[in-house]
C-alpha cells in the first residue's frame, strides 16, 4: 500500500523553530489538508514532505510511486511556450517527445486552454491561465501523490471551482492522493478527507477534523454548513486569532 508517513518531524531555520513534532499519515486515495494561518510553517512542511528541503529531525517516508508539485505561483519557464511547459515533467520522466507533446495538448484542452494559446509564452498569459498551465503540468504526469501549495489562492471563484472539480473527479476515481496546504477553510472542507490544524510559533498540529461524505457529493450547502460549524471550534478561533476581529 502506497502511503506518506511523517513521524516526529522537527525543523529549524537557524535558531528559529519552525515545526515541532509533526505526525500524520496520508493513505492512498485520500486527501489530507493542512490548514493554518499564513507564516505558520505550512509551506516548509510541504517542502519537507516533497523532499524539496532536507529533513533534519524525524522521518518522512514516501512510498508513493510518483508525485508532483503545484506551487502557489505558477513557476512556468518564461522561455518555453505553454505546451513545452506542460510537457516538462513528462520529458523528465523519459516519455518520448512526440508523445509528451500529444498528452500535453490533450490535458491543456481539458483545463480550458485553447489551441491558439499553445504557442504562447507565459508573459502573454493572464495569471489564471498561467495557473491552469501549472496545474496541467503537475497533473499530466499522472502522479499518485499530488502536493498542492495553495494553488487556488490567486484565482477567481469560477476558475477555482473548475480546477477543484477536476480534482474531485480524480479523487472519486481513486486516481490520486493529495497533500493540500491552504489557509482557506472552505476549500479544505470541499476537498479533504482529513484536515489537520497547524498552529504557529512553532508549527505544531493541534486538532484533526475528518469528513466522510464523498467529495463528489459535497454541495455548497454542505460546505457552508461545515464551515460554519468549524468556525465555532475553540481551537480554530484560537489558531486563526478570530477573536481579535
Amino acid at each position: 500500500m502506497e502511503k506518506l508517513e511523517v513521524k516526529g518531524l522537527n525543523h529549524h531555520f537557524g535558531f528559529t523553530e519552525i515545526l515541532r513534532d509533526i505526525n500524520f499519515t496520508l493513505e492512498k486515495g485520500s486527501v489530507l489538508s493542512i490548514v493554518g494561518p499564513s507564516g505558520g510553517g505550512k509551506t516548509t512542511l510541504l517542502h519537507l514532505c516533497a523532499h524539496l528541503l532536507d529533513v533534519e529531525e524525524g522521518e518522512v517516508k514516501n512510498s508513493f510511486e510518483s508525485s508532483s508539485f503545484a506551487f502557489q505561483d505558477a513557476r512556468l519557464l518564461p522561455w518555453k511556450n505553454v505546451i513545452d511547459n506542460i510537457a516538462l515533467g513528462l520529458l523528465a520522466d523519459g516519455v518520448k517527445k512526440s508523445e509528451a507533446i500529444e498528452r500535453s495538448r490533450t490535458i491543456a484542452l481539458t483545463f480550458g486552454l485553447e489551441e491558439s494559446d499553445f504557442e504562447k509564452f507565459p508573459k502573454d498569459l493572464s495569471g489564471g491561465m498561467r495557473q491552469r498551465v501549472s496545474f496541467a503540468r503537475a497533473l499530466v504526469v499522472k502522479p499518485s501523490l499530488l502536493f498542492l501549495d495553495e494553488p487556488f489562492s490567486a484565482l477567481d471563484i469560477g476558475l477555482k471551482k473548475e480546477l477543484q472539480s477536476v480534482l474531485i473527479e480524480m479523487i472519486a476515481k481513486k486516481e490520486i492522493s493529495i497533500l493540500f496546504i491552504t489557509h482557506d477553510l472552505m476549500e479544505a472542507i470541499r476537498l479533504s478527507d482529513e484536515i489537520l490544524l497547524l498552529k504557529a510559533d512553532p508549527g505544531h498540529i493541534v486538532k484533526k477534523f475528518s469528513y466522510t461524505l464523498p467529495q463528489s457529493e459535497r454541495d455548497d450547502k454542505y460546505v457552508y454548513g461545515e464551515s460554519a460549524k468549524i468556525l465555532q471550534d475553540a481551537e480554530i478561533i484560537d489558531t486563526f486569532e478570530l477573536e481579535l476581529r
Partner: protein
Amino acid sequence: MKFIIKILKDFPAYLWSGWGSIASIFLFIALWDMGNQLYGDLVLPSPLETFNTLWMMLHDEEVLYEINITLYRAAMGFGLSLLLGSVLGLLAGFFATASMMSRPIVTILVGMPPIAWIVLAMIWFGMGDDTVIFTVVVASFPIIFVGALQGTRTLDGDLNEMAKSFNLPWHMKFVDIYFPHIFSYIFPSWVSGLGMAWKIVVMAELLATSDGIGASLAVARSQLDTPTALALVVIMIGSLMFIEYIILEPLKREVELWRS
C-alpha cells in the same frame, strides 16, 4: 535547424522594419553634407567625396590587406575574451566566494583606461600583433565576464525548486532551466564586447603598429588626407553596423522572443 529556418523566414520582415533606421542615417548624411558646405573640404569632406574614396579603397589590394590584418587582430582578441570571459564568468558565478573576490578586480579592469593598457603592452610586448590583441582582450574581457557572472548569480531559485520537484535530470536542468537564463545575460555582453573590441583594435593599431586600419588612419592624419581618414571611419562603422544589425540583432530577437 528549425530555429535557423525561422530566423531566415523572419529576416525579410526584420529588414523591412529597418526603413526608419535608414531614414535616420540619411538624415545624418544630410547634416554631414551641411557641415561640408559650411567648413570646406579640408575640414570635412563631403559624403560624396568620402564614399568615392571608400569605393576606390575597397578596390585597392593594399587596403584590403590592411583591413584583413585588423580583422584578424580583432577576431583573435574578441575570440579570446569570449572564451575566457564566458568560462571564467560562469565559474565565478557558481561560487559565492569567487564572485565576491572577482568584483574588485573587474572594477579595476573596467576602470583602467585602455590607453594606459596600450602603453604597458607596448613596453611588455613591443610593437606588433601581441600588443593589439592584448589590449583588445583586456578591454572586452571584463564586459563578457560580468555578463556571465550576472547570468549565473541571478538564476531563479523558485524555478530550480520546480525543476527539483519534477526530478529533472541534469542535462535537462542545464538545457531548459540554466542555459536560457544565462544566455539572456551573456549574449548582450558578447555584443557589447564585440563593439568594444572593434573600437580598441583601431586605437591600439594607431599607436602601436605600422599596419592595419589604425595605422592607415595615422598615415592619413600625417598627410592631412581627411577623405581617406573619413573613409576608414566609414569602414569601421559600416562593418560594426553590419555585424550588429544584420547578424546579431535578428538572432537576438529569435532567442529572446519570450522576454516581455
